[in-house]
């Protein structure tokens, strides 16, 4: 593998966050991030984006139950026919 640079680091960042890189690549990305303020910032920003997205995942739960199931059942009956 070529020596790590910012472009390569950026390319591998998400897989690094997911722990999907080989141990060699992980070590290269980690040491690059520790030495490069721009890439460290990119890493922190991506982690923040991921955090906001996962917090966002909490959504309204009852809606589907209350409205969709009766409709779907009616639709199912219609499709089945008499």
């Amino acid at each position, binding site marked *: 593998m070529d020596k790590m640079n910012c472009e390569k680091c950026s*390319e591998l960042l998400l897989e690094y966050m997911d722990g999907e890189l080989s141990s060699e690549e992980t070590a290269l990305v980690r040491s690059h991030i520790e030495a490069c303020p721009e890439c460290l910032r990119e890493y922190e920003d*991506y982690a923040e984006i991921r955090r906001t997205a996962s917090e966002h995942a909490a959504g309204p739960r009852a809606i589907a139950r*209350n409205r969709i199931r009766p409709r779907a059942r009616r639709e199912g009956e219609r499709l089945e026919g008499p």
Partner: protein
Amino acid sequence: MFGIKKKSELSDEEEMKRFQNGDESGFNVLLMRHGPAVLRFIRKMTGADAARAEDLLQEVFVKVIERRGHYDPGQKFTTWLYSIARNHCIDFLRTESFRRHGSLDAPVSAGDEGGAVVIDMIRGGERAQDEKVYDREVRDVLDEGLGGLKEEFREVFLLREVEGLSLDEIAAVTGSPLGTVKSRLRYAYRDLRRAFTESGYFEERRKARGE
């Protein structure tokens, strides 16, 4: 007990098989399990308001009913479900430009008995949530950022980061090679980072952390 699963513990694929065999409760379980997440995906994917997104969700699950005979129980149910949802969103986006919402106050169409009541409940529930102003702002920033993404980047980001699908599953859902999925996710992050930066969000966060 005795290694027998309770009905509620059946896998998605087993529930779908029950439904294919005419047991409606299999469908109900799947709807309860996945309805909220698919609704969220639809809302974020299309930018549709709550009422329209519910209609789209209904249409998706009606397709599940209509196409149940085509489902192969060997296939992961969520891959099949999100394929239907994703294609339905794309059809919707083709006929209506993104973020051209109808008004939230638009009357609920005739025949949706109880619909207006449900919408009121949703609105009330959203307002009633003990939600800090800060959290709302974060959500706005994310929504804005998502709205600005290219459609193919947005869908990959939502399936991965909000719905928690694996990259392989996303490749199956979107019919794209794994490498394409990975690069689209990277582009989504790159563009979201730009949007978050322009909104001043990161700066605020760094200040808050005392950096």
